[in-house]
């Protein structure tokens, strides 16, 4: 695969407008048929005018592409792109942190989509050496997830469908806001990992999503994934513990056993089983976060949903006293924790934020 740069350049040439210039196309063609765009990290990149082959290096981006109806343009994604289920059948290029550059190049993408919080700058540089452009998204809030979706829609030539989706989701968020307007914010602890206790910082999109769901995190840390003192949590006595659920994954001690553990059992939220379980979508900066916000809002503020309460009891009233068995409530880590996957000790030591400052 030493000549991986050539095929992609050759393909670019084949789009050349005038065959007469084909002889010198190698020098001038890329300029005449590319455009310059600024990605969300402020990098200026050159990409082909029309984009037909896209590789996604983040589960959140894969989800967004499907939502925009661009699944046919998606020619490759990562091992962890599992939503929608069809994404699992796309050609795989490895993990988000350690993708195979060869496998990406072999797919001849017009553009590779990365996200700053998850992918590594090394990956972007290696792709640039092969003349494969990469566009980085960098959403930090729910609003930025929506605007980032709009940017991708414009970039990939489907601005209308992007605008329609974003408008619909904004209306749903506004509806939730309206319902919750008269209720005080719940004070919650978002549990990323119980032992050792990892929660979320105030700058994460999850903290922002909690806000939309009528809740505030008791943890006020500027780190994104702070290891938190249980003492501090006991002092703050959150009203609810929020867990992200997963049906297939590994779990540290399940939430059922928390009531027996020193420290945890002193928490009012544990004594009263005030647990809220939210879909693992909350861990990904993609559009399903709006559904996760709605589900969380219903669990934290059942009084704001009086009609639905009887009709959809199981889904809406949270899990007070009826926590599903452990296998169904296994916890899932946010996307950024995938970076601990890195094969080298060097990459292990780097946090997601530092891993990629594009």
């Amino acid at each position: 695969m030493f000549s991986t740069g050539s095929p992609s350049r050759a393909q670019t040439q084949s789009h050349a407008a005038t065959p007469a210039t084909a002889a010198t196309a190698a020098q001038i063609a890329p300029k005449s048929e590319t455009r310059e765009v600024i990605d969300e990290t402020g990098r200026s990149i050159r990409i082909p005018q029309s984009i037909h082959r896209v590789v996604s290096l983040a589960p959140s981006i894969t989800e967004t592409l499907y939502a925009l109806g661009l699944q046919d343009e998606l020619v490759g994604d990562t091992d962890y792109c599992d939503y929608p289920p069809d994404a699992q059948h796309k050609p795989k290029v490895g993990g988000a942190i350690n993708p195979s550059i060869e496998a990406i190049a072999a797919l001849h993408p017009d553009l590779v989509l990365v996200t700053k919080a998850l992918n590594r700058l090394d990956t972007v540089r290696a792709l640039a050496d092969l003349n494969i452009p990469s566009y980085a998204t960098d959403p930090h809030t729910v609003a930025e997830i929506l605007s980032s979706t709009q940017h991708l829609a414009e970039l990939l030539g489907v601005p209308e469908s992007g605008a329609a989706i974003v408008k619909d989701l904004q209306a749903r968020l506004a509806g939730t806001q309206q319902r919750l307007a008269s209720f005080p914010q719940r004070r919650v602890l978002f549990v990323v990992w119980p032992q050792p206790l990892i929660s979320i910082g105030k700058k994460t999109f999850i903290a922002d999503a909690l806000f939309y769901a009528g809740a505030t995190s008791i943890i006020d840390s500027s780190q994104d994934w702070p290891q938190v003192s249980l003492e501090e949590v006991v002092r703050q006595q959150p009203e609810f513990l929020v867990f992200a659920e997963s049906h297939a994954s590994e779990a540290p001690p399940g939430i059922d056993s928390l009531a027996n553990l020193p420290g945890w059992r002193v928490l009012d939220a544990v004594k009263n089983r005030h647990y809220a379980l939210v879909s693992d979508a909350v861990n990904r900066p993609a559009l399903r976060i709006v559904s996760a916000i709605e589900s969380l809002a219903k669990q934290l503020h059942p009084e704001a949903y009086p009609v639905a309460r009887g009709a959809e009891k199981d889904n809406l009233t949270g899990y007070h006293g009826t926590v599903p068995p452990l296998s169904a409530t296994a916890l899932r880590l946010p996307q950024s924790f995938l970076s601990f996957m890195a094969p080298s000790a060097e990459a292990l030591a780097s946090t997601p934020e530092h891993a990629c400052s594009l």
Partner: protein
Amino acid sequence: MQPLTLWRVLARCGILAVILFVVVVVALKFGAVQVSLWGLGRDLISVILHRTSAISTDYGMIVIDIRLPRILLAIFVGAALSVAGTSFQALLRNPLADPYVLGVSSGAALGAVLALIVEPHIALPPAVTALLTPLGAFLGAAATIASVYVLGRREGLLDTNTLLLAGIITASFLSAIIIFLMTTLVSRDLHGMQFWLMGDLSIALQRNLRWILGVTFAIAAAAIYTTAGDLNLLLSGEKEAMHLGVDVPRVRLVVYIAASVLTGLAVSVSGAIGYIGLLVPHVMRWIFGSDHRILIPTAAFGGAIALVIADTLARTVVAPAEIPVGAMTALAGAPLFIYLLRKRLA
């Protein structure tokens, strides 16, 4: 070597016990939540008198239910690692030896990772589930101890060099398996993984587990202490020790098994905390000399003191956030080690 008297041992241990007590009180005082010394004393007396109803405040619950168990865990883990390190340094007659040199921590980490992988796929009562990861870690450690023992024998007996090489190779092989699992099978429990590599004392243990740990620690430490006199003779050489009547193979076996069990226990509940088992034995040897009859108990106290201090710093320097205690011991341990080394040479 001065003749050993009970007084010499008790005097040294007594001083260290007083220091440990002071350190524990300071550790109880400081944390993410401020408590007064007066309130602390009152609550502790209530606990001792079993009048738990007298502890009404949240703050009392924080200190008694979170801080105290964690400090006790630090004492246990610190003492276990330090005694294990002292034993391995004597057994292998190598100043670089630490509790992890023979692969026990890698085996425990692998066991913990495997437990994390199988946990969602088997249905167990919650009480057992909470124990599964420490249990997996301990089984991993035990399996490693057994295989290194088999590999480290020469003509049926433990041989120092063979044991050391077998341990190092086993450790590196197990680390390779962990890396392989991390990059292929395991997808999401990677923070749990980091915990096993780094060392952390913040996990809450169930009460029954604490008793098992305490009793096993006492048995293993006592077994090592019975060989203290023989270890002194071993320092002058194996042939010499044998001529002086030491049953060298038996001493090796007892020390190897007991020290490995101590390490396995410590790693199962706290991950691989570095430097305590390497640094504390050296410091204690420089202060109290290399008579193992004194060195082993003083090393136990020294390890406990060092780890309680390190964990208190880990809890407080960035409060209300925390840093893994393993990062703290490495951060403080390496420069301290260099300083002591240069000072001793000067």
